Structures are given as C-alpha cells and as structure tokens.
C-alpha cells in the first residue's frame, strides 16, 4: 500500500526527479543537434518539435527537483551547473545520434519506456508529479506514435533501410535494460506510490517494443539488455562530458551573467 507521499525521503525524490528531468534534457539536447541537418525538411521540423517538447519537460521536472531540494536551485542551475557525476539520466539517451536511423531507433526505445512511465505517473500519489506527467504524456504519446511508425516503415522499407535499422537496434539494445534496473531510489518511489514499480513498466515495454519490431520485420537481439548501467547513479559514458562541455559553456565561462 502506498505510504503518504510527504513521508518519502526528499533526497530520493530529488534524485528521481533529476532522472526524469535529465533524461528529457539530454535526449532533447541530442535531438536538437539535428536542427538544420535533417534528411528532409518535414523531418527536420518534426525533430525540432520533439526536442522542444523535451526541453519543456526538462523545465518542469528539474523545476520541481529544485523545489523539493529546497536549496534555491532553479531548473537552469541544475541543467547548467552540475557535473557529469551529478547527472541522473540513463546512458541510452547520451549516446551520439549516429545516422537518422539510429536516432529514430533510440528515440523509439526510449519513447516506449517514457510513454508507459508517464501513463503510470498520471496516477502518482504526488499531485505535482501527476500534473507534470499529464502535461508531458500528450506530447510523448505523439512522439511514440511517430517514432514507432518510422521504425516500422524503415524496417520494412528497402533492404538498406532494414539493415540500418537492425544494426541500430543491436547497437542500442545493451543500453535499454538500465531503464528497468531498480535501485533504492526507484524502490522508495514505488513504495510511496509516487512512481510505478519498474518491473511493471518493463513488461509493458516488452510488449510494445516486440509488437513494433515484429511489424517492422526486425529481430529482437539475443544478447543481454542490461550490459550498460550506472547512468542513473551518475556513472556515465564518456559522451556525457562532451555534451556538458558544449551545453554548459556559456554558464561556466561567464559565471553569474544573465542571458
């Protein structure tokens, strides 16, 4: 039975909110790298919409994280003034974009998780969390429709597009398990009824992903999905440091300036 949400360890809640916010921040950052370089104008515009949605989610999640922390940090402070070891996103979202097929595949694998997660969070015991989830869910539902549709089309398109999508799937697969490996933070949130148990999300994710992959004529990789974990605890890939070097440059070079 859910405990009173106000009884939950605030440090754990802060960490968990950073996970939500950092996933959106880093994936949004990666997606925004496409701006002006998309494979066709319509896709360029669609990718920018996705990135804009994710930046919006970041502002909400990290904004709440700052409130919960109670140390006066804003969403911008959290985004621009933490170092890699304080970031709580999964490794999946920080990997480089690769080609457009990899970008779409990674988005799809994350969207399926994101969609199920937000769907469950709409019923969170913490009203603030439920409110953010309800706002974000509408956008993520569209993102998932779009990315799963593109996975199906490219998987079942030409021989080349099929092979590229299969290769993309193999590439990201060992990173997907991290989304479902629960640690003390996840368990505390589940116990408080703030967030769902990750095992529930995992089984729904499995269904969504395997249905789409089958329609896309793609084959689920045999290997372990949880090879690369640790991002949620602040142990990242080498790639995150470069993202932060770029993203945080102005805030770091001109401390205290207003923009």
């Amino acid at each position: 039975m859910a405990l009173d949400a106000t009884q939950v360890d605030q440090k754990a809640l802060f960490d968990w909110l950073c996970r939500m916010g950092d996933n959106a921040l880093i994936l949004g950052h990666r997606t925004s790298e496409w701006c002006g370089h998309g494979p066709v104008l319509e896709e360029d515009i669609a990718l920018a919409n996705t990135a804009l949605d994710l930046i919006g989610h970041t502002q909400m999640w990290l904004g709440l994280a700052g409130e919960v922390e109670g140390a006066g940090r804003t969403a911008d402070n959290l985004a621009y003034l933490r170092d890699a070891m304080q970031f709580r996103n999964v490794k999946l979202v920080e990997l480089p974009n690769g080609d457009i097929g990899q970008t779409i595949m990674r988005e799809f694998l994350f969207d399926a998780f994101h969609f199920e997660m937000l769907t469950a969070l709409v019923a969170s015991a913490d009203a603030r969390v439920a409110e953010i989830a309800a706002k974000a869910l509408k956008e993520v539902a569209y993102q998932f429709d779009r990315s799963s549709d593109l996975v199906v089309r490219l998987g079942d398109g030409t021989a080349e597009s099929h092979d590229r999508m299969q290769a993309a799937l193999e590439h990201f697969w060992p990173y997907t398990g991290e989304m479902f490996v629960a640690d003390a933070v996840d368990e505390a949130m589940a116990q408080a009824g703030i967030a769902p148990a990750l095992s529930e999300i995992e089984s729904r994710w499995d269904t969504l992903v395997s249905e789409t992959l089958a329609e896309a004529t793609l084959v689920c990789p045999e290997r372990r999905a949880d090879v690369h974990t640790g991002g949620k605890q602040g142990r990242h890939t080498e790639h995150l440091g470069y993202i932060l070097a770029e993203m945080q440059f102005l805030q770091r070079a001109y401390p205290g300036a207003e923009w």
Partner: protein
Amino acid sequence: MSKKEWPLWEIFIRGQHGLNHRHVGSLHAPDAEMAINHARDVYTRRKEGVSIWVVPSSEITASSPSDKGPLFDPAESKVYRHPTFFDIPDEVGHM
C-alpha cells in the same frame, strides 16, 4: 538524388473555432498517413488546428482561369440573393 521524390500533398486544417477546413499550404510525404503527421508538425506549430485533411496535389481538379467569366460573372446579376435587395420599413424592426 533519391530515386523517387515524395509526392506533394495539399493540406487543409480546421481551426480551433469551428468553421470549415481551410487550405493552408502543401508539403511532401510518402503517403497519406505520413502527410498527416507532417502536417501536424509543419502547419500546427502554433496551435492552429483541431483537424487535418490531406489530399494528393495531383488529385485536385481546379477550375480553368479562362472560365472565370462564365463561372463567376452570372452571380453578379442575382442581386436578389442579398438581404439588402429588399426594402423593409423601419417600423417592422430588425429582420
């Protein structure tokens, strides 16, 4: 160059406040479903719409410009279709 260019679609959007679908522009897409997604991303960035129609541009049949006279001029002589044609005395009130 790609083997085949994506076909062109004409996009019609019904705005927030009812009224009819209105032509807003065109875009390229490989099929109708994707044309709808593209239309959502391209033409409703500022909350312009609640419903989208897409039609292949090649399926639009337009009236010929040289027929403009015969098609539209006859309406000019049907002045009795407009309410101002009829004089109603002021005493009758608003009608």
